[in-house]
């Protein structure tokens, strides 16, 4: 059941990899794992998928466990470098190939796959400046300690420095079981206290949903706009609602990220090192794009925006395209 014409060990089949994610849930992770699964299937790989559920220590244990299991390669999805460098090295020492997504393990043997949080934040914030001008009262929803959020927030900070007219009048946020509802409650308090606030930057789509809920409940859809990051079918639904304050979002297709990760790892396992850096370009999606093209789901988005459907990163002739 090997893959005809593929280099060893794929020609004989029986390749086994582990995918260890730092995150525990959410649309993004779901899409990522779906991408991982279909690319793995296309390659005849058995993929062991596990999640650390936002616990960095657990992520270490899971990687350790993958080493114990004797897999051929490991995809490390997010996490923190300090905590993972040594276990990643331990995996390499055990002859296991490693690729990392969105966590800089700073190791020449480990290909780094990046969707570039900075690029996403920059894309959408530039859109905000384009639409709202260089002077406005802005707010940001942010909770420290989640690496992608930290990187996206840093871009917001640099924007407020670059454009002195942009004022951060409030920053709030919470991560709990009912993020959307809790953020909505907070946002209402913020909007009441800051009636001139006109732009909210939400570096995570869960936050965007909460802020949108608050704006809807207060009926401020005309005056306050949301600039977000990430996209999913339900995000699209929220954006295209009539009068939706969520006007733009920047994202990569998480499923494509999953596919690229598996391909990069497969190349590495086959002895064809994919390079130290594999980049996936993010796309800006505005409300107008969606409404004008009648897009209501991720699948439709992929049809209309080819850049969203696939990435050329880490491809090879012997790697079959996943069934979609």
């Amino acid at each position: 059941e090997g893959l005809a014409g593929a280099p060893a060990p794929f020609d004989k089949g029986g390749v086994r990899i582990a995918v260890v994610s730092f995150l525990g849930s959410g649309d993004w992770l779901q899409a990522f794992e779906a991408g991982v699964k279909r690319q793995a299937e296309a390659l005849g790989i058995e993929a062991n998928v596990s999640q650390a559920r936002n616990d960095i220590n657990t992520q270490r244990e899971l990687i350790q466990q993958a080493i114990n299991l004797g897999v051929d390669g490991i995809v490390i999805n997010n996490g923190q470098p300090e905590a993972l460098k040594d276990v990643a090295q331990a995996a390499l020492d055990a002859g296991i190939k490693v690729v990392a997504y969105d966590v800089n393990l700073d190791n020449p043997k480990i290909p780094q796959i990046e969707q570039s949080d900075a690029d996403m934040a920059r894309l959408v914030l530039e859109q905000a400046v384009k639409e709202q001008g260089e002077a406005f009262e802005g707010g940001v929803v942010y909770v420290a300690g989640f690496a992608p959020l930290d990187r996206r927030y840093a871009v917001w900070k640099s924007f407020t420095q670059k454009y002195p007219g942009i004022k951060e009048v409030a920053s709030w946020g919470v991560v709990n079981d009912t993020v959307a509802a809790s953020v909505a409650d907070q946002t209402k308090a913020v909007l009441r206290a800051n009636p001139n606030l006109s732009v909210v930057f939400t570096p995570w789509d869960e936050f965007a949903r909460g802020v949108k809920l608050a704006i809807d409940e207060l009926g401020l859809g005309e005056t306050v706009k949301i600039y977000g990051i990430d996209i999913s079918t339900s995000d699209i639904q929220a954006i295209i609602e009539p009068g939706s304050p969520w006007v733009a979002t920047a994202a990569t297709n998480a499923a494509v990220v999953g596919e690229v990760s598996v391909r990069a790892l497969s190349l590495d396992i086959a002895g064809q090192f994919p390079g130290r850096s594999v980049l996936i370009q993010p796309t800006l999606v505005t409300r107008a794009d969606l409404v004008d093209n009648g897009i209501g789901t991720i699948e439709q988005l992929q049809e209309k925006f080819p850049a969203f459907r696939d990435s050329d990163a880490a491809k090879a002739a012997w790697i079959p395209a996943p069934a979609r």
Partner: protein
Amino acid sequence: MTDIPAPAVPRRDRAALVRRYALVALLVVLVVGFRLAEPAFLSTNNFFSILQAVSVVAILGVGVTVTLSAGGFDLSVGSVAASSVMAASYAMVVWQLGAGETIGLVLALGAAIGLANGLLIVRLGIPDLLATLAMMFLLAGLQLIPTGGRSISAGMILPDGSTAAGAYDPAFFVLGRLRLFDVVPVPVVVMAAVALVFWFLMERTRFGRVFYAIGGNETAAHLAGAPTRAYRLAAYMLSGSLAALGGLIVAARVGRGDVSSGASLLLDSVAAALIGFAVLDARRANVLGTVIGAIFVGVLLNGLTMLNAPYYTQDFVKGAVLVGALALTFGLGRKAR
């Protein structure tokens, strides 16, 4: 006649007065303080925003209060609420049920989970904490199995590859988003109704006395003729139903089925119930106290957010005020032993 003089009713000294009203006074001070710092704080709209923000926690807290008063402890309320969000979404998005059926189904589900808790505890004699903790883990996993761990929203892809055909029933949003007279959000009305009904049940009916009697001494209540097992089952069923109601409100507000463990809902509702111990110096679980406890925390969080306090100082202040209020309530004028 043995005319031993009855001991004089202990006069309420000043410490007792302070203890009695400490939390309420603190609440007033908070409100005034926030109002001074930020005039928008005391608007009608913001008032109802606060109530809306605490409604789910308060409703779950009332359930916790009922089980506490019957000498139990329900650690599963958070995950029952989280499961209810998923169940409601699944019912509408996948099974394409209407709002009414969905609500009935989810409430029944909550009651059924409560019954399961109760049977584990009453029939098998598993300690409350243990049984409901197990249920909590069970639900945290169970709620995700139908969708394979995915969140539920209109147009979602099911595990079998097909696309879900249904969507949220617009009528369902009434429960979470409508405002009566354009002012009072429905969740607040629901919370008020729950609080009133359960306050009446627990304080003004025979049933309430029996719940407390069971909590105080189950054997004594049994010997006095109470069907204690039925009451304890009922307590868990009420708690489960209330948690399901809370979950329905969350679903009707957010409009999708999000994967979550419900741990923070659990903690916040337990905190509200425990703060309730101190309200009016009750020193036991009580419905009024729980609701005031939830509102107390809500005022604090809303005010601090308005003042743009970073989220971590909010947790800190929440804890500090809790400690302070408790120290005042329990520590003042009461020598332990």
